[in-house]
């Protein structure tokens, strides 16, 4: 979800990943292409309490490459006439393609730890991550999936809309109920803007699933 521009931002640093020998994470049916989520992002700052309604839809998941992508729609953005939609791409922390260390997007290891440790489900992993970056951890049986979501571009508004997508989200997905929590990180925006999402099922009494062919 976009946030207000505070000042111009530097280009994100590019850095290599840290691929290990692990296998990709197994599929989780609620973190799949087509699944929709809805909730809020708290954008409060010292002056004002504020939360924007947010909808997310996952458009693609490629566990082999630790990749997923989707769209994010911010509904009651004060300076926009319409809901603002962005397209994001995500990295799944699987120890194979990506680790807990971001290594880019202006995030230091300290920033990483400060954000991950805000998720209660990260607590059991923290010690291991601090000692070796989590290299020894096998996350394939862990009921939470950690990710980074980075918005790539605006879908329905121009870049001159007064909003920025320079930062990225630290995200934690709960496999059991499909709930998502996240923290937006951008050195130039209010810190720890919290994203909270739950699965939606469009007025139905149950879950439904679409798919497209991934050969």
């Amino acid at each position: 979800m976009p946030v207000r521009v505070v000042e111009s931002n530097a280009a994100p640093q590019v850095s290599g990943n840290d691929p290990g020998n692990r296998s990709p994470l197994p599929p989780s049916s609620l973190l799949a292409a087509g699944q929709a989520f809805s909730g809020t992002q708290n954008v409060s700052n010292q002056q004002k309490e504020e939360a924007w309604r947010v909808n997310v839809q996952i458009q693609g998941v490629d566990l082999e490459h630790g990749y997923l992508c989707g769209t994010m729609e911010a509904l009651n953005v004060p300076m926009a006439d319409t809901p603002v939609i962005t397209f994001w791409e995500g990295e799944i922390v699987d120890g194979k393609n990506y680790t807990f260390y971001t290594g880019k997007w202006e995030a230091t290891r300290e920033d990483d730890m400060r954000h991950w440790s805000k998720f209660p489900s990260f607590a059991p992993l923290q010690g291991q991550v601090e000692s070796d970056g989590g290299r020894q951890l096998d996350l394939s049986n862990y009921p939470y999936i950690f990710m980074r979501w980075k918005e790539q571009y605006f879908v329905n508004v121009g870049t001159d809309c007064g909003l920025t997508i320079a930062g990225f989200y630290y995200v934690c997905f709960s496999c059991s109920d499909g709930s998502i929590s996240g923290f937006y990180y951008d050195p130039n925006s209010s810190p720890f803007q919290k994203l909270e999402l739950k699965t939606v099922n469009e007025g139905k009494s149950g879950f439904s699933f679409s798919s497209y062919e991934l050969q």
Partner: protein
Amino acid sequence: MPTSSSSSSSFSSAASSSGNRQADVFSRLASSDPEVKLKALREVKNQIIGNRTKKLSFLKLGAVPAIASALSDSECNSILVQSAAALGSFACGFEAGVQAVLDAGVFPLLLRLLTSSDEKVVDAGARSLRMIFQSNQAPKYDFLQEKNMKFLFSLLNSENENVSGLGASIIAHACGTTVQQQVLCDAGVLEKLVILLDGSLSQREACLESLATVLKNNPEAVSRFVGLEAGRYLSSVTELTKDRYPRTRLLSCLCLVVIYNTSPSYFLNMGTKSSLVTTLLELLNDHGQSGDDAALGLSSLIAEKEDLQKLAYEANAIKNIVDILKTGSELHPKRLQGLFLSLAELCSKLEDCRCSFLSLEMLDLLVNALRHKNADVRTAACICFRNAARSVKVAVLGALSNIVLDFSSPKSTFIEYGGIKQLIELSKSMDPNARCSALRALRNLMFLADNKRKELFYSEVKAQGFVSLISDPEPTVQEQALALLRNLVDGCINSIEFVFDEDGLILDTVGKQLRKSPQAHMAIQGMYVLTNVASGTELHKEAVMQQLFPQPQAESNNFMLKFLQSHESQLRSATVWTIINLISPSSPGAHDRHVKLRDEGIIPQLKNMVNDACLDVKIRIRTVLSQSMSFGDN
């Protein structure tokens, strides 16, 4: 060019006035005077060389049998040379000509010329036979017979370049099985063929073609070839990809593609891969047969290889191919097939490729290709469509600008209408691959589709249409049809109503298929159809129960229990999701359905599965069991 003689230069265009002259040539062909006969043969030969219309017109007049009898009756070497040359000309690049030549029974006569003591006769016979061996209609040659193998080697050993070239052409034409490849290798054919690599242009080309045939999908043959003189000949073939003749460049590329596809380990060098890709891309611009063949070569090279697809993409393959397709000139079906297959491969894995492809406004061309008269072209376009439609950014890009699939504008609605209609037509094709591809494309089009698009699709296919797709004899087609249905009934609650059209005909068919012990992949899609339907109202959930436990009971074989015991975790997961939806606490009939599921042994089975090896399944089962406890079941 004006001529002073009475030769019939306007044979085909002025049939009435040329009647006498034709009769004249034919009577001269039958003349007992060798000089007259020779002159007539030369006349025919000179007229038909490179002229398809003339060939056809002479063919219709029965020239081939007339020349064949000149060949069989004469002892005169000049006449043998001229008649063999004329027959070869008829067969050159002209299938009807090959047919006529073979029908006239000249094949053994031409073979006999190879034993002549006159070098010119041998040469003419070999040339002529080579023309015939370029066609698929040429007789198959049985290498397994010893005398045939001996004869083949006598050809390959010949000093005459047309004769040794003929040997290579026979191999290229007739070697089709692993056994044949093995027999040829054991007889030392590779060692003979590689000598021709240093020969004349025609020998080289014939050699490259036959090498590709002998090596194809045969790792043992490839390792033997690469081992010859420590890889010298692999280097020679690689070197020939830079030859000045396009055909040689193409054939050496195709040979390398075969080697690569058979034994990729010989191609560790990124530079070789990259130059192979760029050479094939350059050859695409050749207007002749080499360009046609290069397109299929490229698609075969990059098939299922992400690294090569990336190389091709970086070498601007998409833009090159699309530019060729957009030239507007009529392209050979083989080239169209190769170009669409290459695009399909490029769009199969790399999202960047899909975006770049979609941004080139190709949709009209693609829809046209889906209507092409050639089935191979239609299938290729269909696969391409499917892979491009897989793009996860399509919807987003579409909204971003009007470049892609903006379904709201009247133009693209029209295109989509045409596209969907064509795909539905293709889903009824005789060819199971085409059916499968068409359904996959439709499935991807229905992924998160809005109601308007779903209605549009359903109004074309209807309940009966769906029933035949789901009941297709091919399991892979059934799987795609069910996956398509699954997408159709996902989304808003109204979408579920599609399966209730015509008294629930579609849902009944899904139930029927699931009761037939289907393969796991099909069952997964079928169970997700039931899951999606069960996410709806009370009525929808009850309809699913009807399919799971139909009356009379005898019909039921409790397939859910089998699915829960499947080794395929996705099938277990899909089945548990159906159960979750059926007993969703928000629905009034949940309790009764739970009782039924318990009595049918489903809930007890789930209790045995609390530690399922698959985390996803385990989590879902725990959801069911906690719901179960709230119903008072322990």
